[in-house]
């Protein structure tokens, strides 16, 4: 009985380990506005802090604007950071963390070259 339970547990865990890691394309190969590890860990803090400075005080730093993030990271195919292989949505759907940024902000790249970081 115990061996059966152990076998089932092992099977489930093996399956889980092979679950799809998020697939996303970083469309621009050069550096982001901050090192990758820092971006992964702190992007939400950066977004929140910068958004309050822009909103309340009117400080507009082009490098750190959401528009700039979207312009760089939007998929070449769809032009959006949402969708099947969208930069933002692929990780967020994998982690099941709902984001509501793009209910208001447009997820589409604007028709111009992005500002360099």
């Amino acid at each position, binding site marked *: 009985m115990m061996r059966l339970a152990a076998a089932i547990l092992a099977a489930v865990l093996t399956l889980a380990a092979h679950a799809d890691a998020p697939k996303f394309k970083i469309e621009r190969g050069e550096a982001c506005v901050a090192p990758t590890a820092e971006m992964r860990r702190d992007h939400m803090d950066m977004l929140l802090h910068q958004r309050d400075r822009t909103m309340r*005080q009117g400080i507009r730093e082009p490098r750190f604007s959401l528009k700039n993030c979207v312009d760089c990271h939007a998929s070449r195919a769809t032009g959006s950071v949402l969708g099947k292989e969208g930069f933002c949505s692929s990780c967020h759907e994998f982690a099941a963390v709902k984001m509501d940024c793009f209910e208001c902000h*447009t997820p589409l790249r604007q028709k111009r070259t992005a500002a360099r970081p």
Partner: protein
Amino acid sequence: MNPDRREFLGWGAAAAAGAALAPGFRLIELAQARSPQEAASKLQRWGLLIDITRCGECDACVTACHEENGVTGHGRPETDAQWIRKVNLRDKRTGYAQTLPLMCQHCEHPPCVDVCPTGASFKRDDGIVLVDKHTCIGCRYCVLACPYGARSFIHEAVSGQKADVPRGKGTVESCTLCVHRVDRGGTPACVEACNKDGGKAMAFGDLNDASAEIHRRLKREPSSQIRADLALNTGVRYQGL
């Protein structure tokens, strides 16, 4: 006189002179236009001056505003957002008719800011009244509180927003005085369209800047506020009302 007292007076005079000159230095900076990376400043106060005797059937301001800010209709006039509208007046006794554009008046003492429970409706230091959509819970109390009916509630999901103007379902919005343009040294879309295609009725500028055209006109010519009795000190002034 005691030498210590003399020294003290000397320092005092220097300090007073510095205090008197310091705002002047800041003003000189501002006369060269604020860069987007700087914070909005209390020394500036953005405003509009609208001469409604030059307004006719034209609604270039309305079209331009809604185009600039991505405000699209859904064929539902009661719930569709309107950031600016033309209001037609007719005197009840004399029949005299007028028309004027009405938008958020960017009051100095905005009732909408006073009533917002979360502080989402706020006034920036340079006088522009905005809604922080990140904190807005969509209670619509500010829509009730605005004496000008300037606010709209977004009644449906929004897509295809302009990059500079985020808008979303369930929050409240109103005229932003094209803050995204103003911060980059531009003028609101309504003013631009009026001067290009309309009756040249609208002027935009810094009400606090003595060298600004709008400041000088307000000083020379009569003007009025809508609902001046409420003592809100609006940033939008009208002529010909």
